[in-house]
């Protein structure tokens, strides 16, 4: 508790445009969860909340809000997909 880690969050599609960059860095407590990251990002980038939905992927897997993050994780914002 109390210790801080830096997380790099990569973004695609409309999320990349909302961030204004392909990735951003953010600081979190070391026991922070995916849900905590969501809240933090939505405060910093309110337009994320306007999306139809979005997911967070950790190490290329869709991650539920209770998943705990580590500094070494590859974290990505996945706005609504539209491939095909």
């Amino acid at each position, binding site marked *: 508790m109390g210790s801080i880690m830096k997380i790099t969050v990569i973004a695609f599609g409309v999320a990349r445009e909302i961030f204004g960059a392909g990735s951003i860095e953010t600081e979190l407590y070391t026991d922070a969860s995916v849900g905590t990251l969501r809240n933090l990002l939505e405060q910093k980038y309110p337009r994320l909340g*306007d999306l139809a939905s979005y997911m967070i992927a950790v190490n290329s*897997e869709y991650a539920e809000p209770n998943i705990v993050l580590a500094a070494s994780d590859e974290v*990505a914002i*996945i706005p609504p997909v*539209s*491939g*095909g």
Partner: protein
Amino acid sequence: MTEIILTQVPIDIHYGINAVMDPAAGGIDVFIGTVREQTKGKRVLRLEFEAYEKMAVSELAKITAAAFAKWPLLKVVVHHRTGILAVGETAVAIAVSAAHRDAAFEACRFIIDTLKQTVPIWKKEVFEDGEVWVAAHP
């Protein structure tokens, strides 16, 4: 056999079809998604596809594995294009071979339907008067 390819160059449909041919195959189903000239009555100039490539490949591998678990299939090839596509170009090509056509049709349909739900690929439609990330907003 499964082959999953994301490519920035035009998709060679014939490569995928030839790759799923098999002496044990009786039926091959192929789905080809192409860029339409209009959407909701608006003229489309081009599409731009962006992929989280590593995860797109792993999600596609999950989908094809699920298809092989569900149907008796022989070979599956999934090609998805990224980058800028003009009207008429092929965005996705899926080829599925099986001993019998039921499995080929159903699995091909399952793969494209699930791809559109779970694979991290995004499409931006570019119009004369603006552009929009498809499905991004309610």
